[in-house]
């Protein structure tokens, strides 16, 4: 939001302007701006899906995996994971440590996972190898 628009909205909030006047001022402001500027200020559409794309060549044959998972499903999954009893999480943590993954699942809070999913749309992972290409992104 630019400064002038913010001033108009502030004046509207303070009662110095009526809604009609504020609308007219904003319209006049928009007319005075180049169209490209208004496009830039438009918020980016929120991502809905997590995409995993794998292109690989195995035994000389090309293979492709394309998975699309709704982010809503991940959020629901986090809620489901929150129901796992602490004893089970403790056992899983022990097994992870045995396998060489020092990760304590009992310290992982559902809020942290939710925050991770919220910011997932900003993440893009790309792995390029001679015989395989992996891409993880949100759309």
């Amino acid at each position, binding site marked *: 939001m630019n400064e002038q628009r913010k001033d108009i909205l502030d004046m509207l909030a303070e009662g110095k302007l009526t809604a009609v006047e504020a609308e007219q001022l904003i319209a006049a402001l928009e007319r005075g701006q180049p169209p490209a500027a208004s496009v830039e200020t438009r918020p980016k559409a929120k991502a809905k899906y997590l995409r995993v794309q794998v292109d690989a060549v195995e035994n000389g044959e090309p293979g492709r*995996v394309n998975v699309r998972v*709704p982010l809503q499903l991940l959020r*629901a999954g986090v809620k*489901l994971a929150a*129901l796992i009893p602490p004893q089970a999480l403790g056992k899983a943590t022990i097994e992870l440590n045995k396998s060489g993954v020092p990760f304590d699942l009992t310290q992982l809070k559902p809020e942290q996972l939710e925050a991770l999913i919220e910011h997932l749309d900003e993440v893009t992972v790309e792995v390029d190898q001679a015989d395989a290409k992996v891409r993880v992104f949100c759309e």
Partner: protein
Amino acid sequence: MPQLVTVRVKRPTGRLIRIWVPLLPVAPVLLPVLVLAALVAAVAGAVYRVRVLTALGTGWRVFSALRGTQIDVEQGRTAVLVSIR
């Protein structure tokens, strides 16, 4: 809530199999199985001290969120596609 599950299988011979499963008409057929599953979940919840109603509610949320899921795997001349709409 998901309405339709589409499964498409392409065999190495080139034969294509497509299956459409409309979930709403199938739901009454699966109802006895679902009731049984809910009972098993209730017993398991009691044993492992998990709130059964919360678990069932979350399970329903997961099911509802399945809409839009698509899994497409292709290897050589074989391909499998599962799409939930």
